[in-house]
């Protein structure tokens, strides 16, 4: 183990840790985006998706995944801090004149975008996961009503032991969250910075792991740009849809339509 420690104490080893944890987070972010986009398929779809996320796996496994993701964020940030401090130490006196030759804006601002993203992650978890941001405690009936709706499948409420299965009203929580202009603005800004972070990060990951050559560099740069923009548009379209009134609250959780449909039969 002592031998392997030398790897994680080296600049390259630390970068490899950043690349690997970055890969986990890059893949998570795409899954998260695709999950979120289900809001456009109706309240019943996104609510059922949220229900599945919480019930398909046993609770300890869910917590395992959550802690693993947080660990990845932690290691990514920790390594970034160590490397940044080492870089600062390596150049105590700067230049009077410094010109950038070819470094992209995204590459030069990774630390800035990273710090703001970290702040966003804290806010985002407090906002939608623990729901404990003052004035936005969606677990409280007085803030979000109703906060429990029926789980709807194929247009009908899912029944279990003769009772309707209820689930948290994720659809309305998202709409309520984004109806706040400041929250939406921060959300769009953060996803914009995420785009910037990914445009450099996604191809940089392959460079750090040494998994690229001259032929693949331009392709990876293209993939990184595409990935970054796809993530930005996929996330930012939701607050935009809420602010423009395309998405509205659905207090029935998509059930009304289901009852009407079944009544006509």
């Amino acid at each position, binding site marked *: 183990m002592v031998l392997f420690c030398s790897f994680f104490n080296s600049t390259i*080893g630390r970068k490899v840790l950043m690349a690997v944890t970055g890969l986990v987070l890059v893949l998570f972010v795409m899954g998260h985006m695709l999950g979120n986009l289900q809001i456009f398929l109706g309240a019943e779809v996104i609510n059922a998706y949220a229900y599945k996320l919480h019930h398909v796996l046993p609770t300890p496994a869910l917590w395992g995944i959550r802690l693993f993701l947080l660990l990845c964020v932690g290691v990514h940030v920790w390594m970034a801090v160590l490397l940044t401090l080492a870089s600062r130490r390596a150049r105590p006196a700067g230049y*009077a004149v410094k010109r950038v030759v*070819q470094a992209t804006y995204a590459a030069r601002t990774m630390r800035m975008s990273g710090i703001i993203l970290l702040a966003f992650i804290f806010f985002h978890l407090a906002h939608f996961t623990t729901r404990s941001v003052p004035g936005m405690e969606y677990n409280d009936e007085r803030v979000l009503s109703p906060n429990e709706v029926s789980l709807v499948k194929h247009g009908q409420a899912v029944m279990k032991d003769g009772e309707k299965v209820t689930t948290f009203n994720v659809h309305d929580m998202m709409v309520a969250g984004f109806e706040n202009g400041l929250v939406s603005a921060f959300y769009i800004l953060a996803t914009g910075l995420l785009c910037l972070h990914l445009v450099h990060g996604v191809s940089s990951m392959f460079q750090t792991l040494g998994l690229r050559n001259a032929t693949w560099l331009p392709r990876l740069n293209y993939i990184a740009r595409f990935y970054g923009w796809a993530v930005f548009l996929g996330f930012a379209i939701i607050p935009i849809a809420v602010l423009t009134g395309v998405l509205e609250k659905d207090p029935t959780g998509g059930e009304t339509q289901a009852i009407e449909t079944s009544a006509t039969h």
Partner: protein
Amino acid sequence: MKLNLRIWRQKSPLDKGRFEEYALDNVSEDSSFLEMLDLLCEQLVAEGKEALAFDHDCREGICGMCALTINGIPHGPEKQTTTCQLHMRHFKDGETITVEPWRAKPLPVIKDLVVDRSPFDRIIQSGGFISARTGSAVDANAVPIPKQTADTAMDAAACIGCGACVAACPNASAMLFTAAKVSHMNNLPQGEVEKDRRTLAMVTTMDGEGFGGCTNVGECEAVCPKGISLDMIAQLNRDYTSAQVKNFFEPVS
């Protein structure tokens, strides 16, 4: 040409250092940047002042001694050009030119524009060689090497160790230099035998000298007078990681 020069002057490593401004007239557009500095030195000596200290040797772009940050870019504005091969025609008449030494803690200023690049020597000493008995080396052409491999090794071997990569890097990282030296040897059959040991030793020495880490921004590649590419750094990352993994299971000697 008439020039206003803003040049870093520092008496010794302990001196704080400061910029001093000089006016220089009658500079030929065809003179090199170093010849222009020679003129300045003559002028300073004639005025009874101390001449400017700057590194130079071959003046034909192959030794890697010249090392000046000119208007914020190591080796100045021209691509793949050392300071000695940079000509004054690339500057405007009456222009103010700022000249600074490389800025990195591991490469401290000795005097004026001269920096101590001995950390590079120590990186080379730790693994930039192949082990062969003197006098018993086989003929170079006795070992067949594919053209592509030879070309890659030659591209890496083009590094002259000037240190512009460190100077341009926002992290003062010596990854491009180390990567060039490692790739040069690791790609060839003569050097492949000691690949893992070499890679581990050279990276450890590099880190130990206090250089920063690589953030893949590519400024080193952009200023390198020999056009060493980031591909070399990708290979160093790959070779180092695989050497560490092998070392974990069976210590590399």
